[in-house]
């Protein structure tokens, strides 16, 4: 991963700091399996530098960005770079304090505390990735205030207080204005430093395609990245929903093309069919048709 960061022109000083952080906070062997190995790297020098610096300074991160900006990819990449075990929580509207900190349960006739992901993460000095935090009610999140600020503690009523490991960091993601989301209150927002995640640039998208599919011809790389940007523009202008704006779906489609599936069918499976409204599906199909011929064969796309 350090090699990748070097390729991204991240400052050597920063890389040294990451190394010394990891060395001074060893991970218990039992939870080493929680250190992630992300499928995709995150591209974007400025964002990398901002995020690493914030984490080294002991701050928690709030990554704000729309769909397909790589919020979770970056969070996982950071955990890997810092060699930290990762606890990931996907927030939903019914999330409450108990599901974060822990719940009571019966074991052998007695009530026992079953620790939740935030408790575990704080105990072992991990990175907690809290996905779509603004889906949850602010009241449910209030329980996290003490672990997120300078106090670094979790107080569980009836079970005592636990001091969080000094390596603990929380990286939360949110998609502002996404359907079904609410405003983050100031008390919570003040406990994070915020990074506005830019949409993936054409250049970075091409880098990603090159890395994932080294045999994909240059023309293919250009057209698939342009296709994704066309879809994004259509989505930004509210002509289609964000369902078809799916970078993972695009990569999966190209992977299927590499295996020999027709371009049209692969893109249908990876992008178009994720839209269940037939009219919108027509619009998505038009965007695809104006970029990539449906019956293009594998040998015209890949050099191997």
């Amino acid at each position, binding site marked *: 991963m350090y090699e990748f960061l070097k390729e991204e022109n991240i400052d050597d000083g920063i890389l040294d700091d990451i190394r010394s952080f990891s060395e001074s906070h060893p991970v218990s062997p039992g939870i080493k399996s929680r250190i992630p190995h992300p499928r995709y790297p995150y591209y974007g020098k400025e964002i990398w530098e901002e995020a690493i610096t914030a984490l080294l300074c002991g701050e928690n991160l709030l990554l704000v960005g729309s769909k397909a900006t790589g919020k979770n990819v970056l969070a996982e990449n950071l955990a890997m770079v810092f060699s930290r075990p990762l606890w990931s929580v996907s927030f939903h509207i019914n999330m409450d304090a108990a599901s974060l900190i822990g719940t009571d349960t019966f074991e052998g006739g007695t*009530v026992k505390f079953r620790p939740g992901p935030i408790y575990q993460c704080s105990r072992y000095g991990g990175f907690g990735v809290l996905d779509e935090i603004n889906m949850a009610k602010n009241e449910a999140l209030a329980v996290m205030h003490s672990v997120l600020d300078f106090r670094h503690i979790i107080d569980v009523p009836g079970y005592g207080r636990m001091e969080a490991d000094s390596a603990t960091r929380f990286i939360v993601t949110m998609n502002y204005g996404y*359907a079904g989301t609410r405003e983050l209150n100031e008390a919570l927002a003040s406990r994070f430093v915020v990074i506005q995640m830019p949409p993936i640039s054409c250049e970075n998208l091409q880098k990603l395609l090159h890395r994932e599919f080294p045999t994909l011809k240059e023309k293919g790389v250009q057209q698939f990245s342009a296709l994704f940007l066309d879809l994004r523009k*259509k989505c930004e202008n509210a002509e289609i929903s964000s369902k078809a704006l799916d970078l993972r779906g695009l990569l999966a489609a190209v992977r299927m093309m590499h295996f020999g599936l027709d371009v049209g069918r692969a893109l249908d499976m990876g992008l178009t069919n994720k839209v*269940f409204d037939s009219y*919108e599906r027509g619009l998505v199909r*038009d965007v695809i048709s104006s970029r990539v011929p449906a019956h293009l064969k594998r040998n015209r796309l890949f050099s191997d």
Partner: protein
Amino acid sequence: MKMHIQSYNGEQRRACNQIWTAAGVYDFDPQFMAFDMDGAPDLYMNCIVGLAHKWYGEEMLKTLFSKWTGDGRQAMFDDLAWLSLENALYERELPVRPVLEELRFLHAKEFFAQEYRLSRQEWMSKNQLVYTLQAARWQRVLGKPPLVQSVRAKNLDAALALSGTLNGPDLSAAILRVFHDYFHFNGTPWVRQPFKLHFSEKWVPFLTKVMPIEIQRTDNLSVRTLRETQQDGRASPAGALHAKLHLQEEEQTDREYIEDCFGRSLYSPKELNMMEQQLCTDNHSGCHLWFTDGVPTKGGCHSRESEHLAQQAAMQARRNRDIYEKNLEINRSAIIRLAGQIRNCMLIQQQPEEIQARSGRLDVGRVWREPLLGDSCVFLYRDVEEHPGFSVDLMLDASASRLHCQETVAAQGYILAESLRLCGIAVQVTSFCSLRGYTVLRVLKPYSLKHANREIFRYFAAGWNRDGLALRAAGELMKGGPKKKHLLLLLTDANPNDSHRIPPGNKYPFGRDYGGEQGVQDTAAEVHALCRRDIRAAAVFMGENSSVPAAKDIFGKDLVRIRRIDQLAAAAGRLICTEIMELSDD
């Protein structure tokens, strides 16, 4: 290639999207769209239109095509200009969009495939020269030998194959040069003057009988009720007697007219009278109310005029339904999106319920059950169910100012009501207008009939709009609502206007017109009165820029402005989401 269209149906919207995709920008309404013989959008030519915007800009296209607007040969010039633009844009875009090669090939194949589907009339309507030049172009694209052409056509064909290296102004100049060389077009449209005859008034009765005529509907359906009043507002004894006789006769006629046009009253005469006494006060003194569900009265129409209006209403309902069906796909899509948006908003605002479970938060009051009864359900689990705690009233302005967009208002009303039904929210849709001093509230879809949304297609527009009284009366209608909390959504142009004047008072001894500032003040007061009764009123505003301050005065922040009527449902959806959040905080 079709010229600019103001509001889009499903296929037109799709064509626009093809153009916007190729252009890479979405901030313009395309001047041209391309469709094939079956009316489906032509992807390749729409791409070309979009690319023209991308490479040469909207201004260049507008200026170029405006050169021959109005010319007798405009259609031919349009087609030839696009033929030359096609070549230039294809050459220019191909290196960055290789798919164009295949799209162009398919377009050429389709051009010749369509030949067999053309009727004789369609063949005759084609310009022979344009067709020859198009055929030559597409023949070349398919790699087939050239068709036999005249020397002039061959030269013109070559001249129209403009290079992709030309910039906008050079391309414009080249096209104009070709038109000059081959058609003597000097840059000024040659307009053929239409043949006109003017007849004096004495010929009018005869000519309107023997010649076809066009009837223009106006909003002047309201008849003022004459009242002789003294300066203090009381009628003079002599005048009062005359007025009373006159009034009773006229009121009976008006009532029958209203009943014939809009349908029977929902209330008995006694109930209606009591409601009028209660509601038709202050600024609305002397006005009447009519609540109806549109069901015609037994015994049929009383006058030819009302019979004609009833027929027109039935025709309009058919038109509303037909237009909706025509754009079924795009309308269904709008319903799905809107329902999703509202459902999502409800989901995050709903309150969880705590139920007994085997894990969760310990319920100390039940913990004894585990050791004594072996019942491990001693925890509380938070569960959430959908219980929308409010109902929605959609009021559609049905005054004559909506005459031009009745079908769209009906379709948008249906989309909104159907989306709310899918979310389990009770909705009532009412249209309102004023005629002959009656403010008519026509309940198109009541709360009680959950699956009667198609009744909204009975919407039609006529007369004036006395918004203040309509809102006051809407408050009465909502009393029968299934929920305690109400949200009233009003489609308005914030321009209340009624032929029935505000009666004389101390300050205004001669009364005032119901319109302008008085109308706005009165409507604003009624909105505030509704708020005091725990009814939240919000508006979707579609009107002139000059009415924006009035709309803000009336509805404050509970206002969304739309520019096109087809944005109504989406705007109402946004308002509903905001109101859902605020209602749940109450």
